[in-house]
């Protein structure tokens, strides 16, 4: 950038070419009528740090664009209707079979419309990638503490986007009205009906009568292509706006502070990079879609409530809910007079509900525990927040165990195990896994912090042994330079909050809980190395 400013006087002396004059005129024309230059000035100077993990949200955005494009193509051919028709397309093993118009039109899209199958596969693979990249993006935000003030609201909006993406995925998965999606829908119907008192009413409202009815595909279609995308795009807009207002976080290196952002501006460098990146993502998705089959509805056949195939699973992002249901031990039912309370369905729903609510409000929980009201623009290295990282690892293992449970039958057949044993082991892991993950992660973080501290104080072992004139042997340690050391020593040092009386001179139960939580958060900690530590004699000498 600086070089281009140096050259500017030289170029301005030249007569502008015809092209330059046209660009100038056009830009002026637009600006005089829209005052867009203010916006461009603001947005154009938005800085993006250049760490790979900061591009995951972009991956989600670009796969969403791919989804919109391919989805629009399919709306031209898909019929969201459950009217029964006799299939008469090209796929022989379904010829003459009765199915809904939705299924028949999806088959036509797959076999008889040029490019239709590719578009279907692009849409579905992009959807899987969309949700996966949102998940990974959220993990990055969580483990670097980028959800702290002032970004808590954006975390919640991002979380909402994740839920919307899953809802989009599930409604889309149900549209073709094939056997697999029908079975998935039946499970959702069961989940809804498991809610005491209102469950059956909600189910009848959703399906327009007894499952499966003749309405659900039409209703899901409206949700899938109109309502949910509209909310999603709006939330996405707010998400991006807050991203610009809050600015990006960055990792601590010399020259990067809590008060600046170092990176490349949108205009022109980042815009060019991002444009290229979009086409790379698009290319990867199309490559996958053209080489690998996804959701072969022609094999599943039309939906019929009686057959259920072995190995019936939802798409990966709903897997954790399916797994939670599979892990419920037998006999969890309660009979209250004439009513049966299906705890085997209701409890997993409640547990999952609590889990996602905790995820959604985690920034507020942590802010309350730490009592930290400052703004944070420096991303934490995960090891420097051991308790948070351990909580994250516990949450990830809780999710992953439920996720694995959704494929318990495939684990059993492919590893030649008994499905009962697989289920029992996963049940135990659901409880033990998060505990083990919590303890191990916390210890690993503390150990890494100790290692960092050791290196900051004493430098690296050089492997060079020197014999002193007095006969003593010492190993020479190589000192870090200031830049390297900065990365190791610059992080926040929190201490447990003291239990203090509030303004009225009373110690409330809330304060007590907070002190205990704060103690749990920060009692095991490695203080960052200070300048005095380094300069103290005996350090950094041998």
């Amino acid at each position: 950038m600086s070089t281009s400013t140096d050259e500017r006087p030289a170029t301005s002396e030249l007569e502008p070419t015809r092209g330059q004059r046209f660009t100038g005129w056009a830009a002026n024309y637009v600006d005089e009528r829209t005052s867009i230059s203010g916006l461009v000035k603001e947005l154009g100077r938005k800085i993006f740090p250049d760490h790979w993990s900061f591009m995951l949200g972009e991956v989600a955005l670009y796969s969403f664009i791919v989804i919109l494009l391919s989805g629009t193509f399919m709306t031209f051919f898909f019929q969201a209707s459950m009217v029964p028709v006799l299939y008469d397309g090209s796929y022989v093993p379904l010829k003459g079979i009765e199915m809904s118009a939705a299924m028949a039109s999806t088959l036509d899209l797959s076999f008889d419309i040029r490019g239709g199958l590719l578009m279907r596969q692009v849409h579905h693979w992009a959807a899987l990638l969309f949700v996966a990249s949102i998940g990974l993006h959220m993990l990055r935000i969580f483990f670097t503490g980028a959800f702290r003030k002032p970004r808590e609201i954006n975390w919640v909006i991002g979380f909402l986007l994740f839920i919307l993406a899953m809802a989009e995925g599930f409604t889309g998965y149900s549209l073709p009205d094939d056997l697999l999606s029908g079975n998935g829908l039946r499970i959702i119907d069961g989940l809804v009906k498991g809610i005491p008192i209102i469950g059956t009413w909600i189910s009848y409202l959703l399906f327009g009568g007894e499952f499966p009815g003749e309405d659900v595909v039409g209703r899901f279609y409206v949700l899938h292509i109109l309502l949910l995308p509209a909310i999603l795009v709006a939330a996405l807009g707010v998400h991006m706006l807050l991203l610009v207002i809050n600015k990006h976080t960055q990792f601590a290196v010399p020259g990067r502070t809590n008060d600046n952002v170092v990176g490349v501006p949108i205009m022109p460098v980042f815009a060019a990079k991002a444009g290229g990146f979009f086409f790379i993502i698009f290319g990867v998705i199309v490559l996958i879609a053209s080489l690998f089959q996804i959701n072969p509805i022609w094999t599943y056949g039309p939906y019929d409530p009686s057959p259920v195939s072995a190995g019936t699973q939802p798409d990966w992002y709903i897997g954790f809910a399916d797994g939670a249901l599979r892990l419920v031990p037998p006999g969890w039912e309660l009979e209250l007079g004439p009513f049966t309370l299906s705890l085997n369905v209701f409890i997993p729903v409640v547990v999952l509900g609590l889990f996602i609510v905790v995820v959604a409000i985690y920034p507020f929980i942590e802010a309350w525990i730490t009592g930290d009201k400052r703004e944070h623009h420096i991303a934490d290295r995960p090891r420097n927040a051991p308790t948070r990282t351990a909580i994250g690892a516990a949450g990830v293992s809780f999710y992953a165990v439920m996720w694995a449970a959704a494929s318990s039958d495939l684990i059993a057949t492919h590893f030649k195990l008994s499905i009962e044993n697989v289920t029992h082991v996963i049940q135990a892991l659901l409880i033990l896994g998060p505990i083990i993950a919590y303890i191990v992660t916390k210890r690993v973080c503390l150990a890494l912090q100790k290692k960092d501290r050791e290196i900051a104080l004493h430098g690296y072992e050089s492997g060079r042994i020197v014999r002193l004139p007095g006969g003593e042997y010492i190993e020479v340690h190589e000192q870090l330079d200031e830049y390297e050391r900065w990365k190791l020593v610059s992080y926040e040092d929190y201490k447990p909050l003291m239990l203090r009386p509030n303004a009225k001179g009373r110690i409330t139960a809330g304060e007590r809980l907070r002190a205990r939580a704060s103690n749990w958060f920060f009692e095991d900690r490695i203080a960052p190395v200070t300048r005095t530590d380094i300069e103290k004699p005996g350090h950094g000498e041998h």
Partner: protein
Amino acid sequence: MRNGTKDSMANKPKTSARRDRGRRHPLATVALIMVGLIGTGGAYALFTTSATAETSAAADAQLDDGAKLFAANCATCHGMALQGTTQAPSLIGVGAAAVDFQVGTGRMPLAATGPQAEEKPVQFTEEQVAALAAYVASKGPGPAIPSEEYLQGDGNAAEGAELFRINCAMCHNVAGAGGALTEGKFAPPLGDVTAVHAYEAMITGPQNMPVFNDANISPEDKANIITYLKYLDETPSVGGYGLGDLGPVSEGLFIWIFGLGAIVGITIWLTAKSN
């Protein structure tokens, strides 16, 4: 047809001419027919007797072979008189189809006790399997090896597919990729199962499989199912590589490991500082 009619047209006047002249005895035709009938009947009797003698000799030899093979390989568990022991069920009345399936796919003789007999390389030649099947069938009537007409794979694939989804897919998966049962048992993948073994499995219900007798699913419908299985086997997967036909689990693993893996690799490459 055309030639035939021409000939008969041409012959008609001749025969009428003969009758008019009356050169033969009226009973000559009858006698001639008698001679012809006795001749063919005798010859037929002669040839068929000798044929039966040959087949029965061959069948006896086959039964002998079967008995010997059975005594050497099966009797330890199933008993010398096929009566069954505490280790294995009786084989009286299981029929040739059961033997052809179990031995012909290598499931029997059992390699080791376990949740269920697993497929392994076949231990006997086709003749030996046939001998064992004939021997077991001779000890009690049971389902026979299906006739070729049902094994051609020329039935109605659409009806077969529907029957497959209703009757088979809950264990074998809609794409025939197999599935888990209780206690380590499983429904095997159907990709490489021959038509005759698939038919035999339906009529005999090996391992944990239920029996689908002819009242349940007619032989024609079994042929339709086999047609569908053959279609699945022979038609290349539409839309690219099928990832094992395991549905959303393999798709999810693929997008996380290879899809997102590739994209993270690209992000690292894009943000890498040039050396």
